[in-house]
């Protein structure tokens, strides 16, 4: 169950297990079904209602330890993703790490190489930020001829969390970075010791050594007990299970920044260190696979984000791109965070095409797929941020628009 979508039997078992730990507030439900029967008692750690079915989707794989699971964006509300539904991308499985034994080693071009326990890291001044995290390969399938049929499969490698941790700059000052240093090589404690090269400027600007996610310790799948968070940068640079930071005078050309996560252009050259995730948005309701039950007024909604700052504006078309109207942006509208937009829209039973486009505070406008392909071709795999069109059919069914 760790990687696959739970089957019906597992979901039923989950429901049964949940029985013992339902929250007091959920008594109301039980009372509705049988007013004479007592509900469940209090419990130490909450579970969601057994009626809720939103789950991550995982692609089948012969090596399930490397792969990804996708957030059910169509089921999301607000701007945070429950930690349990945060997308995953691992290269060698999720390690089990005892935080009492975990250490972070800071070494290389520093005056004072350091080994720190988690307790010592947690003693340092911390800060908390709500941030979007997006895999560099999110929507990568959209480069191809066949685009994704629903929002989870095509855009689900993105999630929003509140992260708490220590500014990396603070820890680097403790270690005393030498003048020759210009890069930080970050390594995880997973089986494959995932490694990435991070420019020192980013580390000094806003990288976080995070241990908290959404008000508790982060989940093992998200890097427990320690994760490097690089706000706005492709997920893979946010090294999980962080156990080493090595200061160097050059990038190390890791496999995951050369062979992978680099963008091959039509001229045969590949762009490397394409770290920032550019502005992007997608309508989550109504979206592919859903059905509008009747004609009438609906709240069309979706998510927008930019790795370069705040979302300034989101425009929506409900007539195939003939006109675009400004959607309402729901507060809070935070920099480098999921931002929810919405628009009251009347479905009148006419077949139509809907889409959203985001504009961030740098003035950058989310491009069409055609505009992206005109510049980058179709072989770059990563960093796709094109406009996603959905077809609302006359009978209310919502489907993907090819190409």
């Amino acid at each position, binding site marked *: 169950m760790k990687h696959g979508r739970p089957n019906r039997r597992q979901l039923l078992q989950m429901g049964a297990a949940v029985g013992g730990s339902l929250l007091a507030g959920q008594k109301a439900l039980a009372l509705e079904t049988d007013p004479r029967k007592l509900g469940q008692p209090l419990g130490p750690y909450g579970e969601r209602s057994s009626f809720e079915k939103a789950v991550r989707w995982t692609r089948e794989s012969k090596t399930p330890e490397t792969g990804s699971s996708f957030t059910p964006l169509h089921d999301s509300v607000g701007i945070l993703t429950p930690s349990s539904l945060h997308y995953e991308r691992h290269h060698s499985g999720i390690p089990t790490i005892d935080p009492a034994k975990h250490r972070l080693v800071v070494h290389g071009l520093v005056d004072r190489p350091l080994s720190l326990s988690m307790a010592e890291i947690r*003693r340092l001044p911390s800060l908390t930020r709500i941030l979007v995290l997006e895999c560099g390969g999110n929507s990568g399938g959209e480069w191809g001829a066949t685009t994704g049929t629903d929002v989870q499969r095509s855009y689900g490698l993105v999630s929003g969390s509140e992260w708490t941790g220590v500014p990396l*700059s603070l820890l680097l000052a403790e270690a*005393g970075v030498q*003048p020759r240093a210009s890069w930080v090589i970050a390594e995880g404690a997973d089986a*494959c*010791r995932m490694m990435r090269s991070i420019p020192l400027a980013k580390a000094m600007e806003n990288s976080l050594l995070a241990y908290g996610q959404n008000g508790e310790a982060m989940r093992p799948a998200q890097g427990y007990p320690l994760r490097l968070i690089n706000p706005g940068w492709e997920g893979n640079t946010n090294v999980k299970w962080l156990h080493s930071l090595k200061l160097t005078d050059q990038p190390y050309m890791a496999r995951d920044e*050369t*062979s992978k996560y*680099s963008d091959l252009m039509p001229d045969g*050259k590949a762009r490397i260190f394409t770290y920032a995730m550019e502005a992007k948005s997608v309508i989550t309701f109504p979206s592919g696979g859903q059905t509008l039950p009747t004609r009438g007024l609906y709240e069309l909604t979706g998510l927008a984000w930019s790795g370069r700052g705040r979302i300034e504006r989101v425009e929506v078309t409900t007539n195939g791109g003939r006109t675009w109207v400004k959607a309402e942006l729901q507060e809070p509208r935070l920099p480098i965070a999921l931002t929810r937009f919405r628009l009251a829209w009347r479905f009148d039973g006419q077949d139509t095409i809907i889409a959203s486009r985001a504009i961030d505070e740098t003035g950058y406008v989310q491009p069409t797929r055609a505009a992206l392909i005109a510049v980058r071709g179709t072989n770059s795999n990563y960093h796709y941020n094109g406009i996603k069109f959905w077809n609302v059919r006359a009978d209310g069914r919502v489907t993907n628009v090819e190409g």
Partner: protein
Amino acid sequence: MWKVSAILLAAAATLSAQSPRYGVGRPPTPEEIRELRSAIAPDGTGLPEGTGTVAAGRELFAAQCARCHGPTGEGDVGARLVGGQGTLRTPRPLKTVGSFWPYATTLWDYINRAMPFDRPGLLEPPEVYAAVAYVLNLNGIIEENGVMDATSLPKVKMPNRDGFVADPRPDVR
């Protein structure tokens, strides 16, 4: 080098003057450093002692890698490791170690840290050199009598060494 570097040096200079404020941590022990995989720089920094031949690599590959990558690296559960040279500009590019990877040091670093997929960390440095030698030989990059060690490996010029460019985004309007 990459365009970020200039800003970085300035940032680094302001840092080094600082002294510890919180006094957390202690010097790492040799065991703690050993526990980390030695990261290998493109100039070869970090490469350990040891030697590996193509012949030794062929044997090792058959025993440890072929079941996932195919007997001659043509790919199976694991990625294809050979071929594709000359395809990067075509509609169907084939990105492999031979056609795409800019540095041979990356191959050493990656095999050492991550392969075999289900037993990473299994190989000793001479075995990693041998695996690298064999994969490079399969791609026609080194000769059958090639020997890989800390001196020869960083000197290998990969076919796509000059194939990478800095990030020009925002590039689409």
